[in-house]
């Protein structure tokens, strides 16, 4: 037995967990829009919502290897729940957020029993099917969802009695950013826990996981439920800050967009998804004058380029350039 004591292996793992300068800089930078770009706070809040949504997809796709083409189902469930609660008279945002997240989490929990049992094409199809089913059902149940016209009559009370959601966007961005940061802290903790390690094991080799006695189905159900809750929270914040909910929150477009954002930035790194969301949403805003067709032309080319050239997304490409940094954020 060598003379290395227990301190050494733990030190190495501890070093991986430490907050890096880049991370601190990133979060400080998220405060900049308040000062430097106060006209764009509504856009900033949209970016924060997208980032939260991408974070939830990263947990299941980047860390557990579950490819979902229907993740908007949970985003939309959160959005409609938050909208309906307000429409029915309770406009307090924080409790509404929690209830909406729980509702999305419940739906996620139920569907996770199905999700956990499949891989490859059947799994992709099932996630697609669930998303489409929910969208169609929401369309049909127009007595509940407002159908094509969307939910009307949402009115959100000021946060903590003081901060109203208005066109200036201060409250919206502050709310969305705070939620993003808090949930991110939780996700970061999860990544560095034994459970996070187990997820990476499932992604790397789920068969071997079973051979070491892992209850892989149980792990998948857990992370899927957690991810559904986070997606639901993102949807709820969207509903609350914009006071509108329409069918597109459940649509395939949204599921595809969040997938593109995650891949662009790099899956499995937490910050990759955030970066992808920022780049995608800002770019889309810049090009919003363009015909949507042309937008998707460039996105299509970009996707092809990413897969062919930099399969690990922007962050993956960057980390190739800065080789020695080997640990995951």
């Amino acid at each position, binding site marked *: 037995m060598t003379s290395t004591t227990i301190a050494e292996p733990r030190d190495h793992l501890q070093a991986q967990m430490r907050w890096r300068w880049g991370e601190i800089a990133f979060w400080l930078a998220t405060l900049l829009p308040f000062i430097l770009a106060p006209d764009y706070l509504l856009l900033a809040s949209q970016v924060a919502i997208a980032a939260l949504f991408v974070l939830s997809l990263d947990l299941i796709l980047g860390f557990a290897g579950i490819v979902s083409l229907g993740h908007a189902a949970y985003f939309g469930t959160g959005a409609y729940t938050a909208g309906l609660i307000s429409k029915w008279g309770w406009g307090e945002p924080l409790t509404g957020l929690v209830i909406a997240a729980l509702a999305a989490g419940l739906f996620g929990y139920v569907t996770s029993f199905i999700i956990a049992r499949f891989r490859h*094409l*059947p799994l992709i*199809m099932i996630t697609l099917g669930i998303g489409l089913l929910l969208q169609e059902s929401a369309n049909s149940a127009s007595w509940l969802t407002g159908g094509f016209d969307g939910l009307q009559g949402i009115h959100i009370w000021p946060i903590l009695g003081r901060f109203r959601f208005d066109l200036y966007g201060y409250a919206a961005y502050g709310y969305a950013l705070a939620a993003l940061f808090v949930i991110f802290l939780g996700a970061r903790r999860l990544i560095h826990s034994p459970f996070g390690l187990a997820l990476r094991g499932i992604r790397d080799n789920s068969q071997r996981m079973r051979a070491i006695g892992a209850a892989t189905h149980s792990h998948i159900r857990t992370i899927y439920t957690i991810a559904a809750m986070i997606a639901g929270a993102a949807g709820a914040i969207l509903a609350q800050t914009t006071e509108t909910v329409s069918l597109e929150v459940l649509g395939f477009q949204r599921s595809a967009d969040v997938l593109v954002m995650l891949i662009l930035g790099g899956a499995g790194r937490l910050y990759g998804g955030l970066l992808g969301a920022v780049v995608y949403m800002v770019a889309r805003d810049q090009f919003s004058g363009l015909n949507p067709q*042309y937008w998707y*032309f460039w996105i*299509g080319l*970009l996707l092809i380029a990413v897969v062919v050239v930099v*399969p690990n997304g922007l962050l993956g490409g960057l980390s190739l350039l800065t080789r020695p940094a080997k640990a995951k954020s």
Partner: protein
Amino acid sequence: MPPVFGVLFDGLAYGVLLFLLSVGLSVTLGMMNFVNLAHCSFAMLGGYVTVTLMNRLGWPFFATLPAAFVAAAAVSVVLERAFFRRFYNASDLEQCLLTIGIVFVSIAAAAYIYGTDQQPVQLPAFLRGSIAFAGLNFAIYRLFLIGIALIITAVLVATLEMTRFGAQVRAAVNNQRMARGLGIDVDTLFAVTFALGSGLAGLGGALAINLIGLDPSFAFTYLIYVLIVVSVGGLGSIGGSLAAAILLGVSDIAGKYYVPAIGSILIYLVMTVLIMLRPAGIFGRR
């Protein structure tokens, strides 16, 4: 005759069209496990080739059909050689993303060149109208569709069962490694099969114009139906694809006729449940 027969007839016509659109994907997915979500872009290409040849160059309808087949097959060969073959061993996610990227590009290109409206195409006179029979009207074009589909199915089955090429295809779908080990040039075989499958999709796209219409969103809207047919019917199974396509066609038409409020819910529900019960498809092997 009660209207249900009319519904069944329309569903059958729709179903065989879906079959033509899907069979290529089923076989190539079964052979190479390559998730080609851009399959319906080839169908769309075939449709637009027909539109261009007929409306801008005055070709007769029937002449455009082989052209649609050939055009789609040719483009698919180029894409396969240049791109796809590098990704046969890539992860599902990478294949999905690559081909979704191609779908996006194809939709944008179609919108740019042709605009976003439906493309009308004038059928030859003898294909228009309908035949009245036992109190119901049977559209001649749909009869034509069913007829063509039956002929093509017969040709496909004959090729698979009776030619050496067909035997090689069946071997490669069944067990690729073994097929290579026996000296079958699986790569060329796949390129040919891929071209044929895409060509059929192109033909389907051309035939689809007068049944379900053609606009840039075609590549995406019908992708979902095609995926349903392939997943439910089983990879690599022609019979399975035909059965699943007809089942889907009839269910969709019947659902929309009898319970319009349900829309596509029934389809998606049935698909999801079927895939859960039989992940390899009704006739699938894996």
